[in-house]
Structures are given as structure tokens and as C-alpha cells.
């Protein structure tokens, strides 16, 4: 009890301190495009990168290296989930037993599954044109697989195929970076033509990277779900 109240008091003090500093000192809502780096992104982003979606331009082109890192973070985290759950009482060959899903769920998932995959793919293919991108599209794809798991108790993914897919798309991203280095001397340099902004085939390397990320994120999140589903209680 004493421990808890001390903790609460500390949190309260921290909250008040942070809240008032932020309320007083954070230049919230001001026009700050002249002070930092943002004016360059906002006024030159479309010309520089050829992507109509500025967020994508920053995430994949200006700061593409961070994105490569974030993809790796997710990759490592998915592996980590597998690591924690590894051998945690999963008897070999034993399938998970569950009550069969109802007819409505089964039929619905059969119809919706391809649509959800398509929607996910749409999001990441159009990452440089419309809001969304690889991470969002990948998450939607993983949701589609989640649907499969919920509706069909016998469904499970082919691990080798998923691993191979993940590897290939991950390597594609890294290879695009290395190719930039070989061709121009800069890692992850946009070595393809920008094209005209607004068209599907524009923005240089962005579509390639976003398709790779989309597939990779989808495969990884599905892998996490699969790992969780397969563990015995």
C-alpha cells in the first residue's frame, strides 16, 4: 500500500511537471516551417522525390535508412516472440483443438479474405500516392490471415514459404540500398527516375521499397499471430 501510494505520488509529480512544461513551453500550433528542416520537406518534397504523399517521401526517401532499421526491428521482434514461445509446451504434431466457427463466419471469411488481401496490397502499392504505405498495408494483410485462423481451426501457414518470402523481400530492401551505393556512392540513393508525380509508376525506388515492406510486415505479423495460436495452453 505504501509502495503503491509513493509510486502514485511520484507519477503525479512527474505528470504535473511534464504537463506544465509542455503547456507553457512547447510552441504548439505555431508556424514553425521556417526554423527547422520541415520547410524543405514541404516545399521541395514532391520535386525531390516524385512522391505525392509527403509522409511517404520522408519515411522512405529522405529518412529511408530509419525505415530499413524499423523493418529490422519488427523482424527481430517477430523472431523474439518465437524465441520466448519456443518449445513452451507444444507437443509435436498435436493440433490445437477448438470449437468449429459458425457457418456465417466461415462463409464470410471465404469471401472477405481475398478482398482484404487486395485492400492491403492496394494500400502499399499506392503508398507514394495516397495515405498509408507498407506498414499499414502489411497490417491489413495480417488481419486477413487472422480472419483465416479464426474461421478455420485446421488452418496454418507454411512456415518455410513465409520465411523464404520474408527473406527475399527483406533482402530486396537491403539490395536497393546497396545498389544505390554502388551506382551513385550513397546508400539508399534514389537511382530510378522520379517520373511525373501522381502516376502509379513514379517516385523512383519508393514503390519497390514499399511493396517489399508491405509483404514483409504482413508475413511477420502473421508469423507472430501464428506463433501465439500454436502454443498450447
Amino acid at each position: 500500500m505504501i509502495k503503491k501510494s509513493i509510486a502514485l505520488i511520484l507519477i503525479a509529480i512527474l505528470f504535473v511537471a511534464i504537463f506544465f512544461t509542455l503547456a507553457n513551453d512547447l510552441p504548439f500550433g505555431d508556424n514553425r516551417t521556417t526554423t527547422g528542416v520541415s520547410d524543405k520537406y514541404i516545399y521541395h518534397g514532391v520535386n525531390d522525390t516524385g512522391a505525392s504523399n509527403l509522409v511517404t517521401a520522408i519515411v522512405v526517401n529522405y529518412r529511408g535508412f530509419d525505415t530499413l532499421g524499423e523493418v529490422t526491428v519488427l523482424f527481430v521482434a517477430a523472431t523474439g516472440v518465437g524465441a520466448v514461445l519456443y518449445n513452451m509446451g507444444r507437443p509435436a504434431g498435436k493440433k490445437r483443438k477448438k470449437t468449429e466457427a459458425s457457418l456465417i463466419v466461415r462463409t464470410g471469411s471465404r469471401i472477405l479474405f481475398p478482398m482484404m488481401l487486395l485492400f492491403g496490397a492496394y494500400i502499399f502499392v499506392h503508398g507514394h500516392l495516397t495515405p498509408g504505405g507498407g506498414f499499414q498495408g502489411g497490417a491489413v494483410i495480417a488481419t486477413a490471415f487472422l480472419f483465416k485462423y479464426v474461421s478455420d481451426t485446421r488452418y496454418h501457414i507454411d512456415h518455410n514459404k513465409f520465411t523464404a518470402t520474408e527473406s527475399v523481400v527483406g533482402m530486396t530492401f537491403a539490395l536497393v540500398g546497396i545498389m544505390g551505393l554502388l551506382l551513385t556512392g550513397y546508400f539508399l540513393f534514389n537511382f530510378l527516375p522520379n517520373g511525373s508525380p501522381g502516376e502509379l509508376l513514379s517516385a523512383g525506388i519508393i514503390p519497390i521499397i514499399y511493396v517489399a515492406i508491405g509483404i514483409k510486415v504482413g508475413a511477420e505479423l502473421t508469423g507472430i499471430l501464428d506463433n501465439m495460436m500454436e502454443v498450447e495452453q
Partner: protein
Amino acid sequence: MVNIDPTLMIGIPLFMGFLIPSVAIVWKNSPRYLAGFTILFNLIASTLLLIRSLNAPVISVLGGWQPPYGIVFVAGPLGSMLALLISSMTMLTWFYLPPHIKEGNETKFYMLFILLMAGATGMVLTGDLFNLFVFTEITSIASFSLLAYSRGKDEKEAVEATIKYMIIGSLSSAFFLIGIALLYGATGTLNMADLASKIPSANHNLVMMALAMIITGLGIEAEMFPLNGWTPDAYTGATHPVSVMFASVVVKAGFFALIRVVFLIFGAATEALQILMIFGLLTLFVGESSALRQTDLKRMLAYSSIGQMGLLLVAFSLNNQTALVGGLYAMLNHAIAKGLLFMAAGSFIFALGTRDISALNGMGKRMPVTSALFTIGAFSIMGLPFFGGFISKIVIIAGSMQAGTEGMLVAILILSASLIELVYFLRVVHRIWMREPEDDSRLKEAPFTQMFPMIVLAAFVFLMGIYPQAFFKVLIPAAQELLRGLGTMIGGA
């Protein structure tokens, strides 16, 4: 002279990390060789980088966007020295690995192993604050996963340590991220050099809050005192090579990130240095006195490692060139000697099957070579003459003498902490050589592949004690780099 772009030191390991799982489907034994090849590449690249960066800092722009708009890699003598340390420790640990990995786990283990190296290398080379965060994430998540993979007999213990580390580690990255967001809000930029030039004119309250957040976040990685609850469990729960990686790579990279933020971005903010000094002294004493009480060999080494991190914090917060050189020397020495100690301890525990210190009685007769190597590492951490630790402590104390009366006090405290260190390490060494073993049988020494990294590390410990000038050649420019700050290095870009 071949020039290897520093970004390849990240690009190649990431590529290989993605490649390994799919090759392993076809060729089961490949992960070990692919990982070895990658580490070798990084070792060569970082050696070349260190030679180049001694003349002028190597700057590599990512994606062709000039800073502050894009991400930039800045490899000064300090960064490249640490990159070399990271890749060489990883290489030596790679030799040490085989019997300590659980069957069936090799693929993912090696993948995580090289990604850990890539993350740590990125942490020391990047010149962009958010990029530093990304690499910190890679490093810490790879360490959680390695910890989880490495369980042997004590499955439950390792999983518990993993969950603990994972929760604390997520808090750490949350704090770090909020700190970065606040800094970006106050200055509108993320490039370290640009931040350094804009911080003096930014809102002081915001900047200080950001600094507090970042110190909290990175302090967890650097085992700073109130934030190091994960450390003993993680070191004990992990398999021996992973403990080596924690002590020599993960914690060093985290500590270096902390130092870089405080010195390079905040221009050695005095407020921060005072706090670091106090926490450093606390870390030193809490670590050393907890180590005194341990009966578990690896736990003792873990607490000793916390104590050493405290010593480093104290050395750096003295903020003069001598102390910085001493701190860097201690950092190198600790990475090398603690790596050696964890490896030797791993061999003991592997042969004995227990982590209890009392089981070490008479090990000098039962495993003479490993015992000798363990003793060398222990002597160096204690700071006996002719070993690296001696030089580092002398230089740190010389540095603290320059800081006036306050420095005197610090010097006395460092010396008394060394005394505690002396006691608990001598106790173990005494057991190893002086006590009669209960069971006289010779134990099998580790095979040569495992002995080799230990011998290399022991040789370096000696070299650091006998011929420190060679190391000062790199460390003095490195310390000057820290004191000068980033602004002059990239020409204020």
C-alpha cells in the same frame, strides 16, 4: 587502400540477417558460416575505417540528402574505435559460441547475433538522433531475443529475465523517444550537429526535460544505478556468450550513446554532468558492494560490471581531457577484460555444471589454463600493475586531481571502490589457486576454438597494461573529439 563506406557495415549485416533464414532451409549448417563471414567483413571494414578516421572524420551521407535533411554517418576516431571494438568482440564471441547454443535454434540465433552487431555498430556511427533511436531499438530487441533463445537448463529463469528486461527496455525506448520528440519540437531538427548548434537558442525548459528523458532512457541501457534492475538477471539467465555480448557490446554501445548525447548534442551540459556524477558514484558503490555479497559467479561478474559502468560515468562526468582518456581506456579495458572473465566463467560453469563460487575450489589444478586466463581478467579489472585496468584507473584519478577539491573526493571514492573490487575478486582467485579441491580429478579444458578468443583477449589485457601508448594514439584524438563537440567536425553542417 580500399575504402569501405561505413554504411555498408550496417547494410551487409542486415542483408545477411535477412538472407540467413532462407538459406538455412536448404543448407542447415550455413548460418554459422554466413554469420562468421559477415562479422569478418565488419571487422575489416571497421579496421580500415579507424585508420581513415584518424586523419579526418569519415562522413557518409545516406540517400544523397545532405544533412540536416537526410541521415548522416559520422565516423570520428571515437566512433570507429568503438565500431572496431564491437566487431572484434563479436568475432571472438563467434569463436566461443558452438556448445552454448541449444540445438535447433542456430539459424535464428546467428541471425539475431549479427543483427545485434549491426545495431550496436549503427549506434556508435550514426550522426542523427532519431537514427540513434532506431539502432538502439534494434540492439535492445535483439538482446531480448538472444536472451530468450539462450536458455539452457534454467528455462524459467531465462524467460523471466527476458520479460523483465523487455518491460524495462520498452520503458527505456519510450523515454528516449519522448525526449527526441521534445527536442524536435524545440529545435525542428534531428541531425546531431545541427541540434548542437540550435540547442543554445532553444527553450531551456524543454531542452532540459528532453535531456532528462534521454538520460533516463539511455541510462537503462547503460546500467545506471536506479535503472539497472534488469542487469543481474539478464547476465545470469543468458547463456555465456550472450553474457559476453551484453558486457562488451550492448552496454558499451548504450553507454556511448548516452555520452554522445550529453557531450556532443548538449555540449557537456553542466546540469547533466552533475547528475551523472552523482549517479555514477552511486552506481559504482551499489554495484561493487552488491558484488561483494554474491555467491553466484555470474551474478558477481554482473554486479562488478555495473560497478565498472559507474566508474565510467564518473570518469566522463569529470569533463577534462585526462579523465576522458582514462574513461575511454577503462571502457576498452572493461569490454576486453569482462569479456574474458565471462568467457572463462562460462567454461568453468560448462565444466562444473554449477554457478556457485564455492565450487571453484582448486580449479587452478583442475583447469589450469582457463584458471590462468580468468585470473588475468580479474587482475585487470582490479587494476593491478602491468594490466590494462591499472592504467585506466591511474589516468582517471589523474584526471580527477585536475578537478580541484571535489576531484580529490572523487579520487578517494574511486580508490575505495577499487578496494572492494580487490576483495571480492581476490576471494575468487584465492579459491581457484590456494584452496584444495574436494574432487581432485582433472576437468576437460575447453577446446581450442574456445580457448583462442580467451587467449587473444588476455594478450590484449597485457598489451594495454604494458604498452598503453599505442592505445593513447587513438584515445587522445577520441577524447578531444568529445570535448570539441560535433559542430566543428562537420563544419557546422
